[in-house]
C-alpha cells in the first residue's frame, strides 16, 4: 500500500472514477445505448486480448539493466519461466522484449556450456504486482537475484451472455455501490434515460452521444442504519418517481425534488402494467394491453429486515402467505394465481383453492411478466444454488405446476433484486458480479421467436 499525497483515498486503486458525470463516485456506464451486438463483439475482443494495451517495455529495460550490471556483456545462457497469471501471448511478448533489450545492451546469447553467466528469468506475481525475478549464476559466485515489480492492472473483463435466447438480458447500468432498482424513463430503440436507486440516492442519467451523463441526483435521508441485504423498489409513475425502502418512502416532485418520510406504507407488489393500466412516464409509453383482472396489490415490508411481513392490502380472500421475499401473479383460467417465495424457502401458491406449499429449486426472487409470447404470462424465478453465480428462468402454468419454458439465462453473480418494470412485460434484475464486485442491472425480456 503506497502513500499518496494530497488526495483522499487515492490509495484505493479499485475505485473507479465516474466517467459518467465527473463527480466523485463509482458509477460507470453500462450499455450506453450501444447495440448489444457491438457490445458483445467488443467484449469478445477485450477478453481475447486481455493485456494488449500493456506496455512492458519499461520493466523490460529495468530488469535488463539490472541483469547486465551483474553479468556484463559476456555470453549468456537465458531461460524463461512463467509462474504468473500473465497469459501465454504476453509472456512471449515479454520474453522477446527482454531478449531484444538485452541484445541492445550488448549481451550475446549462447548455450550454457559456452556461457559466462546463466540467467533464469521468472515471471511471478504477488497480490498487487507482477514480480519479474532474474536468478543470475556465474562460475565461482553465489547466485545473484535481481527483480522488478509492475502493478497489476485492475480486472477489466466482463462476463458474456452466451446463453441463447428465450430470455434476453441487456445491461442497463453498472456501478460499484449496490443497485436496488433501476427504472427506464425514456427509450427509443434502447433506454435513453434511466433512474437508479441505490442505498443513498436516486440518480437520473441521460444517454447523449453514446455516453451516460448524470442529469440529477437526490439523496435519501434516513435516520437509522439500513438493514443488511438492503432492498428497495423504484416506481416510475406518470410524472414522478416513488422509491420504497425499509421504513422509508420517497416521492419526487418536479426536477427530482425528493421528499422522504419514515413510514410503514406498503410497497406495490406488482408492476402497474400487469393490471393493464400502467401509469408510467409518458415517454416510455403504456403497455397497451387490456385489463388483466389482477387488481393493484400492495404489501407491508419489514422496516428492519429483508422481507415482506405477509400482510397484503387490500387483503385477498383466502390468500395469507406469511412472511415472504417476493411475489408474482398471473392470470390463470379466469382466476389469478398468486405465488409467494416464502422466507421458509418454499413457494406458496394461491389460486382460489387451498394454499399449496411446494419446495422448488427456486431462489427467493420471483416475479411475473405479461408478454405476447407463449401463454401470455410467465413467471421468472432465480435458482437455488451457490453464492457465486445465478440464473433466471421463465415458467408457465399449463396446469397447476410450473413448467420451464426457457433455458436459464446466467448472471455473473447472485441476483439481489428482481422487479417487473412498470409496463409489465420486462423485468429488471440486479446481480453482484463476483469477479468485479460491481453491481449490474439488467433488463430481462422474454423473446418469443424461440
Amino acid at each position, binding site marked *: 500500500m503506497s502513500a499518496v499525497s494530497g488526495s483522499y483515498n487515492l490509495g484505493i486503486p479499485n475505485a473507479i472514477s465516474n466517467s459518467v458525470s465527473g463527480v466523485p463516485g463509482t458509477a460507470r456506464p453500462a450499455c450506453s445505448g450501444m447495440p448489444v451486438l457491438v457490445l458483445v463483439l467488443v467484449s469478445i475482443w477485450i477478453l481475447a486480448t486481455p493485456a494488449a494495451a500493456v506496455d512492458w517495455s519499461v520493466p523490460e529495460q529495468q530488469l535488463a539493466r539490472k541483469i547486465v550490471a551483474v553479468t556484463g556483456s559476456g555470453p549468456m545462457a537465458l531461460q524463461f519461466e512463467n509462474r504468473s497469471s500473465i497469459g501465454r501471448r504476453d509472456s512471449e511478448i515479454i520474453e522477446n522484449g527482454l531478449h531484444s533489450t538485452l541484445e541492445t545492451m550488448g549481451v550475446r546469447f549462447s548455450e550454457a556450456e559456452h556461457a559466462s553467466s546463466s540467467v533464469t528469468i521468472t515471471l511471478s506475481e504477488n*497480490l498487487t504486482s507482477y514480480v519479474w525475478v532474474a536468478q543470475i549464476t556465474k562460475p565461482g559466485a553465489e547466485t545473484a537475484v535481481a527483480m522488478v515489480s509492475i502493478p497489476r492492472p485492475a480486472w477489466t473483463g466482463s462476463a458474456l451472455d452466451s446463453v441463447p435466447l428465450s430470455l434476453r438480458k441487456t445491461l442497463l447500468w453498472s456501478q460499484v455501490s449496490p443497485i436496488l432498482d433501476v427504472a427506464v424513463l425514456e427509450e427509443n430503440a434502447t433506454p435513453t434515460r434511466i433512474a437508479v436507486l441505490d442505498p443513498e440516492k436516486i440518480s437520473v442519467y441521460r444517454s447523449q452521444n453514446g455516453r451516460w451523463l448524470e442529469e440529477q441526483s437526490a439523496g435519501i435521508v434516513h435516520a437509522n442504519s439500513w438493514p443488511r441485504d438492503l432492498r428497495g423498489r423504484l416506481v416510475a409513475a406518470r410524472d414522478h418517481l416513488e422509491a420504497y425502502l425499509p421504513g422509508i418512502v420517497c416521492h419526487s416532485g418536479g426536477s427530482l425534488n425528493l421528499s422522504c418520510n419514515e413510514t410503514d406504507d406498503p410497497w406495490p407488489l406488482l408492476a402497474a402494467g400487469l393490471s393493464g393500466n400502467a401509469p408510467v412516464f409518458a415517454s416510455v409509453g403504456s403497455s397497451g394491453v387490456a385489463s388483466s383482472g389482477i387488481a393493484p396489490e400492495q404489501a407491508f415490508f419489514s422496516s428492519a*429486515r429483508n*422481507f415482506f411481513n405477509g400482510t397484503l392490502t387490500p387483503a385477498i380472500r383466502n390468500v395469507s402467505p406469511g412472511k415472504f421475499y417476493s411475489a408474482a401473479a398471473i392470470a390463470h383460467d379466469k382466476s389469478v394465481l398468486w405465488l409467494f417465495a416464502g422466507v421458509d424457502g418454499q413457494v406458496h401458491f394461491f389460486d382460489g383453492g387451498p394454499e399449496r406449499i411446494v419446495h422448488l429449486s427456486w431462489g427467493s426472487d420471483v416475479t411475473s411478466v405479461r408478454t405476447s409470447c407463449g401463454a401470455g404470462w410467465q413467471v421468472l424465478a432465480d435458482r437455488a444454488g451457490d453464492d457465486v453465480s445465478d440464473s433466471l428462468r421463465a415458467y408457465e402454468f399449463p396446469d397447476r405446476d410450473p413448467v420451464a419454458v426457457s433455458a436459464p439465462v446466467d448472471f455473473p453473480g447472485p441476483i439481489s433484486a428482481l422487479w417487473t418494470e412498470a409496463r409489465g412485460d420486462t423485468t429488471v434484475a440486479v446481480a453482484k458480479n463476483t469477479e468485479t464486485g460491481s453491481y449490474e442491472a439488467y433488463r430481462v425480456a422474454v423473446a418469443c421467436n424461440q
Partner: protein
Amino acid sequence: MKHIAWQWLAISSVLIAALAASAETRPQYGGTLHVSMLDAPLSLDPADRATPDSFGRRSLTELIFETLVSVDKSGRATPVLADSWQTRGGRRWQFRIRHNVWFHDGSPLTAESVAASLRFANPAWNVTADRDSVIVESDLAEQNLLADLALSRNAIAKRDSDKLSGTGPFHIVDWQPGKELALGAEENCWRGRPFLDGIEIEMGRGFHDQMTALQLGKADLIEVAPEQTRRVSQQGQVLVSSAPMELLALVFGQDGSSPDEKSLREALGWSVERGSMRDVLLQGTGQATGSILPGWMSGYGFVFPTTADLARARSLRDQTHVSANWKLGYDGSDPMNRLLAERISLNARDAGLSLQPTSGGNADLRLMRIPLASTDPWSALQIALAEIGLPPMESKGHSIEDLYAAETAVLATGRVIPLFHLPVSYASVSNLKNWSLRPDGSWNLGDAWLESARP
C-alpha cells in the same frame, strides 16, 4: 437470492462438497451459531500484547471491533471506520471518521475516541483528534500505516474501566476468559444488524474434540488441523481454507555466536526433508518454503530452496570445529508438532547433527507456528520478526528488491529456518450460509446466516 457473495476467493481455496440440496433463499434472520476453537485467549482487548496473536483471536476481535481501514483480497486498503484519508508524503496522515457510528455502549464514535484507542494500542505513535478527523504523524514516512491500521490489534475499542466496547456487528453478552464467549447481535450496527441473533464460542477445544462436536451437531463452525483438511473434504463436509499464511519454522532463541554455529544452523536447514514431511505428515497440505513470506505475498518465494541436500548439510557440519547438540522445543498440545519435531530430529541425525525434541521449557530452538498478520508483505514481515524475537528491520526503500534484501538479511542471521506455509482451515455445517474468510484468515460472520433459522 444469494446476495452477499463469498469474498476472498482470489487467494483462498474453497472446497465444498455435497452441499445439501435445499432451496437457496435470501439471508434469513435468527438463530445462534455455535463455534469451537483451539485458542483460549484470556483477553478480548485487541491491543492486549500479553495475548499472543492467532487466527482465533483475530476472529473474535473482528466480531466485536472494527478497524479504521481494512485490506481487501487484492491487498488494497478500503474504508471501514474511516471513510476517507489523505497523506502528505507519508509523514502526516489524516483520517476522516465515519459519522453515525455508535459503540455498543450507545456512545458515538468520535475522533477523540478513535485517537485514544490508537494511542493505547501504539504508545509510540503521535495521534491527535482534529474535529471529525484523526491525525497520525511521524518523523519518518509511514509507508505501511494503512496496512498497520488494518491489523486487528489496531481495532478501535472504547475502554471504560474494565468494560470494552466496540462498533462491530456483535456485542459481548457473556465472557469467561479462556473458556466461553457469548455474543449478541448489535441492533444499531452501522452496517445493519447481523442476520444471526448470537454466537456462542467455546475455546480451548482440541481439533479432535471440535470435529466430534461438529459431527454430533454441537458445533456449527470448527477449525480443522492442516493434516485433516483432505479427509474432511473427502467426507463431504463444507471446508474453507485460507491462502497459506501460517509460517511453520524452526526458531533459535539466540543469534549464532560464531561462524561455526551459523554453519551448523545452515546444515540443519539443508537437512530437513520438507517435501516428504508435507506429503506424509501434513497429508499434502500447505507449501514447503525457504522464506518467511509466502510466494503469493512476495512474488519471489521460489528463489529460496526448499529441497533437502544432505551432502551439503554434512559438508557444512564437517567444516565446523564444534558439535551441534540442540534441544528442539515444541508445543505438545498439538500432536502434529511432536511428529514434525521427531521427523526433523531424524533428518538432523542423518546430517550428523544432534537434535533432541522436547515439549518442556528449556530449548535451544523451537518449532513455531507464526500466523502472518497481514497480506501486506512489509507488515507481515515486521510482525513475524517480532514473533521470532528479532528487532524491527530498517529498510532503505520500499521496492520489491528492498523487501527481498530485508528478508534475505533476516534469514542470514540464522535465527529462523522456514519450513512450511500452512493454510488455516474451517469446517461448517451446510446450513451456515454466506460466511467467508478475511484476508487475514479470520472469520467474517457479519453477513452469515443459518438456513434453518426462522425470522
